[in-house]
């Protein structure tokens, strides 16, 4: 190396630089993201190389705490609850907000390829932690509520929230997180260790802030030539209903039917125990007590093609899951899509705008009842 600086100034500069960046990371707030937040859409998501942090989730949730007492309705779950198939202006959580009125504040933290044990529960738990009135509206697929933290796309955020103390203390989950951090698959261990470092050094928050506000630093195939643009410059990409007109139900029928059939479980199937044990481990009792679990159903476009016995077993599976969730302490567990029609979906599983409207209308009274039961409303 031709240029060799004096060691002391170099190391001092290096440490000061790192400390300054770390301090910057600890003070920057994703304010603009929180102000314009509707959902963590595709360009604010791991798919496009953007990994929202627990502090960004916190910023979104905190932004919604107003001077008036409000009940926070946090929505978590998968792409169904995220609202894939609905333009952000027509997303189902907007209708839910309208149904519930100003006493409630709805925040959609559901994620594409996510579950109710990632962003949603981080948002709900950090509010519960602060003693605020929360109802957690959590989507669930037919047989599993929680995602295995070892393989979840969003484990980074769970570890981040855990290290920062945003999650409720829950020894079985704490033990699992420790186990995965030490003995889990390599990628999960990396996520755990990275989150631990980030909890002190705040580098992810700094980069996410810069990436959102100014410029992104990584090429991503979804964004292609716009990879280095700031994320704030990307609108939510989901389509308006008319744009979906020619895009509905395009999946291969055989494959889709196989997925539908594979979800059928008899009430005595031993797999229930495993999935319920995982749900209990990942969801603290205090969170279950304020949770409305919604079991997602597949579109009648496919379900109606099952023979009558299979169809009955399919629906029974959803109700069996709901029953079991109630048994382990979920305040409510419902199957709201039971009377939805083919038009209420855009594909096997995602709701159309009409489906979103129906869902909002169905669960709003349940949420209101829960709020009363929990003593949030007079």
């Amino acid at each position: 190396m031709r240029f060799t600086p004096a060691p002391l100034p170099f190391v001092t500069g290096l440490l000061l630089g790192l400390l300054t960046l770390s301090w910057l990371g600890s003070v920057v707030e994703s304010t603009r993201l929180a102000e314009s937040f509707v959902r963590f859409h595709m360009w604010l998501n791991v798919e496009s190389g953007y990994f929202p942090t627990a502090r960004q989730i916190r910023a979104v949730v905190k932004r919604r705490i107003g001077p008036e007492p409000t009940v926070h309705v946090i929505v978590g779950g998968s792409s169904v609850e995220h609202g894939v198939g609905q333009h952000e202006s027509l997303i189902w959580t907007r209708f839910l907000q309208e149904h519930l009125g100003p006493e409630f504040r709805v925040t959609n933290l559901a994620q594409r390829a996510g579950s109710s044990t990632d962003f949603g529960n981080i948002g709900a738990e950090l509010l519960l932690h602060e003693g605020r009135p929360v109802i957690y509206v959590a989507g669930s697929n037919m047989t599993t509520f929680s995602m295995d933290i070892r393989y979840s796309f969003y484990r980074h955020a769970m570890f981040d929230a855990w290290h920062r103390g945003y999650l409720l203390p829950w020894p079985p989950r704490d033990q699992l997180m420790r186990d995965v951090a030490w003995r889990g698959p390599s990628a999960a261990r990396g996520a755990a260790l990275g989150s631990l470092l980030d909890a002190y050094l705040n580098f992810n928050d700094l980069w996410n802030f810069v990436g959102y506000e100014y410029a992104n630093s990584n090429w991503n195939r979804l964004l292609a030539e716009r990879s280095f643009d700031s994320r704030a410059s990307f609108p939510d990409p989901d389509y308006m209903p008319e744009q979906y007109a020619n895009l509905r139900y395009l999946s291969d029928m055989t494959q889709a039917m196989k997925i539908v059939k594979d979800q059928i479980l008899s009430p005595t199937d031993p797999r229930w125990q495993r999935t319920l044990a995982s749900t209990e481990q990942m969801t603290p009792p205090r969170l279950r007590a304020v949770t409305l679990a919604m079991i997602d159903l597949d579109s009648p476009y496919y379900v109606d093609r099952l023979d009558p016995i299979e169809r009955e077993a399919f629906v029974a599976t959803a109700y069996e899951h709901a029953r079991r969730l109630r048994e382990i302490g979920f305040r409510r567990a419902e199957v709201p899509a039971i009377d939805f029609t083919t038009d209420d979906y855009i594909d096997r599983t995602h709701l159309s705008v009409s489906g979103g409207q129906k869902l909002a209308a169905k669960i709003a009274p349940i949420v209101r009842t829960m709020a009363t039961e929990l003593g949030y409303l007079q």
Partner: protein
Amino acid sequence: MIFLTYEFVGFALVFFSLYYLIHNPTLRMAILVIGGLVFQFHYGGWVSVVPVLVLAGVTFLAGRIGGRRMVTGAIAVCVFTLVFYKYTAFIVIDSIGTLLPDFGSALRNTVQPALPAAIPLGISFFTFEFVHYLTDVRRGDRPITRLREFLTFALFWPTMVAGPIKRYQQFLPALHEGLARPTAQDATIGLMRIAIGLAKKWAADNLTGWIDYIEPQFLLQDRTWRWVFVGALAARILLDFSGYSDMAIGFARMMGIAVPENFNWPYLARSPIEFWQRWHISLSLWIRDYIYIPLGGSRLGLPRRVVNALTAMVLCGLWHGAAWNFAVWGLYHGGGLALAALMQGGISRLRIDRTKLVPQPASVGAAAVRAVLTPPSLHARLLTAVIDIVCWAGTMVFVGIGWLLFFYPLEKAAHMTVRLFIQ
């Protein structure tokens, strides 16, 4: 990329804290050996640790005991181990299986249960280092007498995964110097080198994303963009590999230990010969010293020199991976080297006063002009510059097309190459 994992960050923090806190050179050496074992075990498991320790033991003992047969036997064990772990499937399934399907199938059924579950971490590097050690001992160099020194050489974690390939004659003095007094200056230079490596890796990873995105559309692009793609491919591998080497050299330097450089602006080369003097230098020198020269090098006339270069480069290609495209890539470069050697041979037959030539044998075109037009006039210098540029451009095209062979299956690479020239 092991150096870019959070686990490695944790490892490095603990390792360097201990290394700097403990001042006793013997204890520092112990930390280096233990660090190497932890590194091997964590990233490779027992399947990595056992072969490296067994081979290190065999190599060390053979070196200590000495004797031509003993050392040759140990070299054979090292080579066999490399072939077994890295090339058995390639030889049995890809080669024999393709040529003689029935026999290949029977052989595969026999061999499959014995095949290793995983390839030991860095086997291509540590076996080459052991072969270098044994060959040099056989040639008369003094062997390493202390086991701990040999283990430090064998388990030196910065160079374990992707080199540079070390020479023990240079490594041991550097090691003792580093163990005795790693200076703040060393740490500073090391950190800067790591930072440069990280920056290169960031650029390489972004290029990887772009290349993966463009590659399926390669044929749909116009010719300019196809050449841009080849350029990106070339930039990516240089940034990726030299970035990793920078980090390895930087970590070693933080310990006060100098390890060989691996790259010297390879894309400024004006001939394939010069390219290999600048690209993956530690491997090129290894191939030269332990394959090319033992085969006869350039001592046995031009035809034999060409055959030797081709053989050495095919083996060099296969070292990069167990697949035919790597062998062809090596052959391709061997052909380039042979052609450059032939051109040099032609120039030398012009019988000009070589003392007037600037000693840049790799710059074939420039050398020819200098040879014809001495003493150099302005006109000659201009012509030299033009020919240098032409030679450089030709070399870059040659190297770029080579990367297609390196990264893609043969048929696809050939198709892509044709489409670089035809719309």
